C-alpha cells in the first residue's frame, strides 16, 4: 500500500489542486443543514464535521435527477450530458461503505447508468473517524472507524498531518496529481494512526449482534412488536432520506412552460403513496407495515439478495428520529423475541 503524509499547512493547496482538476465535493452548510456540495471557490475554513446531516449519497444519487428532457407534444428526447471527473473529500468510512452497498443494487442485472457513471468518475477520499458519535455502531455491521471499503484514499488525522493511504488505482491517480505536496510517512506515523483508530473503535458505545438476524426477522412477521414500534412513528421520511444506503426513488414528469423532463426523485417506503395502487388499494396500508418492511428490507431482504446488510451503522436514523424510534432498540427486540 502506498502511504504518504500531508501536512495540515498544505491542506489548502491540496484542496486547490483537487478543485482545479475535478469537481470537488466537501461538507458545507446550506442554511443550517450540513451536506456535501461542490466547492464554490470562496470556501474560507475547511472543516470536516463528524458527519453530515445529508449523507454524500446525493453526489451519486441526487435527490432530484433529470433522466431526460423533451418538449411538450414532441417525441424528441435529449439526455443530460455526461458527468465530469469528481472527488469527494472528507467522506466518512461508513458513508463510503454505503456507496459500495448501493453499487450492488444499481448494477443488479441491469446497470443504472446515471448512478454508475458518477461512481466511475468519482474518487472518494475518506477521513477516518477518530471521534465516533453516540449512536455510531459501524463495527456491528461490518465496518469500522477506518474501514476502507468503497474508498480510494483514506486520510487519518495525526494532529499536525494527515496520514494518506492510497487504496485503489483511482486513488493513485489523485495522489500523483498532488505528489509534490506530500511527504514520506514514517513507520511511527502508521503506528500512531493505528493507535488512534484503535482508540476510536473502543469509544464506540453501541452495538448489536446481527448474527442470524436475516432469518429471525421473517419469523417475527406477525409479532406485536411492529404495532408497538409504529405507534409513535410519524411516517416522515427522515430515517430513509437521510440514510446513506436507502436508495428508493420515484419517477415523475415535470413541465415548465413547454419544456418537460422525466426525473427521478428520492422516495421513501415510509410514505403512504409509495406503494399505493391507482385503484386505491394499498398493500402496506399503515405505518406498521411500512416500518416492518423498512427493517426487513435492510436486515433481511437485502441480505438475501446481495449477501450484505443495507446498513452501515452511521446512526443518523437514531440521531434524527423525532420520536426516538431507535433501530438498535428494534433489532435488540427482534433478537430477544426470536429466541
Amino acid at each position, binding site marked *: 500500500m502506498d502511504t504518504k503524509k500531508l501536512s495540515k499547512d498544505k491542506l489548502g493547496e491540496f484542496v486547490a489542486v483537487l478543485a482545479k482538476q475535478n469537481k470537488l465535493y466537501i461538507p458545507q452548510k446550506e*442554511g443550517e443543514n450540513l451536506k456535501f456540495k461542490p466547492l464554490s471557490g470562496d470556501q474560507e475554513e475547511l472543516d470536516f464535521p463528524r458527519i453530515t446531516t445529508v449523507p454524500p449519497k446525493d453526489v451519486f444519487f441526487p435527490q432530484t435527477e433529470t433522466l431526460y428532457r423533451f418538449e411538450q407534444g414532441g417525441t424528441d428526447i435529449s439526455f443530460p450530458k455526461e458527468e465530469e471527473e469528481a472527488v469527494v473529500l472528507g467522506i466518512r468510512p461508513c458513508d463510503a461503505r454505503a456507496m459500495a452497498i448501493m453499487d450492488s443494487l444499481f448494477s443488479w442485472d441491469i446497470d443504472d447508468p446515471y448512478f454508475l457513471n458518477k461512481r466511475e468518475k468519482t474518487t472518494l477520499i475518506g477521513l477516518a473517524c477518530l471521534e465516533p458519535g453516540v449512536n455510531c455502531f459501524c463495527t456491528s455491521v461490518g465496518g469500522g472507524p477506518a474501514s476502507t471499503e468503497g474508498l480510494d484514499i483514506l486520510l487519518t488525522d495525526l494532529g499536525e498531518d494527515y496520514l494518506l493511504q492510497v487504496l485503489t488505482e483511482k486513488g493513485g491517480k489523485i495522489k500523483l496529481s498532488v505528489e509534490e505536496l506530500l511527504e514520506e510517512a514514517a513507520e511511527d506515523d502508521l503506528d500512531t494512526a493505528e493507535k488512534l483508530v484503535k482508540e476510536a473503535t473502543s469509544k464506540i458505545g453501541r452495538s448489536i449482534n446481527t448474527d442470524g438476524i436475516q432469518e429471525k426477522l421473517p419469523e417475527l412477521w406477525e409479532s406485536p412488536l411492529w404495532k408497538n414500534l409504529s405507534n409513535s412513528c410519524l411516517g416522515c421520511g427522515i430515517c430513509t432520506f437521510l440514510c446513506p444506503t436507502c436508495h428508493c426513488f420515484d419517477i415523475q414528469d415535470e413541465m415548465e412552460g413547454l419544456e418537460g423532463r422525466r426525473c427521478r426523485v428520492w422516495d421513501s417506503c415510509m410514505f403512504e403513496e409509495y406503494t399505493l395502487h391507482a385503484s386505491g388499494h394499498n398493500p402496506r396500508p399503515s405505518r406498521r407495515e411500512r416500518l416492518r418492511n423498512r427493517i426487513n428490507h435492510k436486515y433481511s431482504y437485502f441480505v438475501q439478495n446481495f449477501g450484505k446488510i443495507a446498513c452501515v451503522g452511521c446512526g443518523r436514523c437514531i440521531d434524527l428520529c423525532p420520536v426516538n424510534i431507535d433501530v438498535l432498540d428494534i433489532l435488540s427486540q427482534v433478537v430477544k423475541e426470536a429466541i
Partner: protein
Amino acid sequence: MVDLEKLKSIAKETVSRDDVKYLIGWRQGTYGFRVSPHFVEKPEEAEELIFSPLCTNNLASYLVLPEKLPLPRGVEPDSRKVALMVKGCDSRAVVQQIVEQGIKRDEIIVIGCPCEGVIDLEKVEERFPNQLESVTAQWSNGKIIFHLPEGNEEIPKEEVLATKCLTCRYPNPVLSDLMLGDEVETWGDEKYEDVKELEAKDPQERWSFWEEAFSSCVRCYSCRNVCPMCYCEDCILDRLNPTWINRSNNASENTAFHLARAFHLAGRCIECGECERVCPAGIPLTKLNRKLSKVVQENYEYIPGIDPESKPFQSSYRPEDQEDFIL
C-alpha cells in the same frame, strides 16, 4: 410539580376502563436525554410513564395521526376514548382540533401537566455530548437538574430551554379533564421579538434568508407529519393529479411547499414548535408561522387554541374585520 406516583395510578385507572383505548404519555427514551411517546394499553405499562423537562413531543399529533383503514364487513370502528397527557402548548393543539371538529371532545380524556418549560435537545446534547446512558431530569426553582451518571448537574432554565418556552404564555393546560399538580406561574409575554427582527430586514435580505433555508429542505415532510394541526386527509403536497407541488427538490418547489403549509396554518398554528424541533435541516419554521400568528393577532385579535367554543378563524367573519388589504 407533577407527582409521578399520582400520574401512574391515574394512568392505570384510566386504561383499565372499558371505554378507553389507550393513554398516550411519555417515557424515557433509549439513550441519553431522549424521550419517546408511550402508548399505554395495559395498566402495567403505566409504570414507565414520566413527566419531565425532557418531554418535548406534542402528543396531540397522535389524536389525528392514526390511519383510517377500511374495516372488514361487520366490524364496528373502535370508538373507545383516547387519554392524552398534555403540556400547556399541547393542550392548545387539542382545543384547536376540537374547534375545527378534527376530533370530538367526548372522544378524548385530557390529562393536564402544568409545565415549566421543556429542553432544547440540541442545547443539552451540546453541553453533555455523547451521553449514552439514560439521563432523567427535573425542574427545580428556575433550574433544571440533570441526573447524570457522574452526578447531578443544575443548569439555569434559560440556558437549556427550547426557545418557544422562553416566551411561553400558556404553561398551564387550557383544557383538561384532570390536572396533575398545581398550576405554575406564567412567565412569558408575547412581543414577537424574533418576528420583528426579521421584519426589520429589507425584503431582499429576507428573501435570501428564506431562500437559503428552503433550499436546505430535504422534503422529508416531518414538519407536516408532526404538526398536530396538519391532518387533512388529502394533503395538497401529496396530490399528483393535478400536481400542485412537484416532487423535485429545488428552491422554488420547496418554497411553494413551505408557504402553502404556512398559509394553511394561519390562525391555526398553536406554536408548539414541533415542526422546527423535528426538522433535520434546521429550518426556522416557527419564525414563519409566528409571523402569521402575529398578523392574525394584530389584525383580528384571534389567538387559536384557547377556547374550545370559538369558531375557526379562517371560516368566521365579523363585520368589523379589516379588509383594507383586499384590492
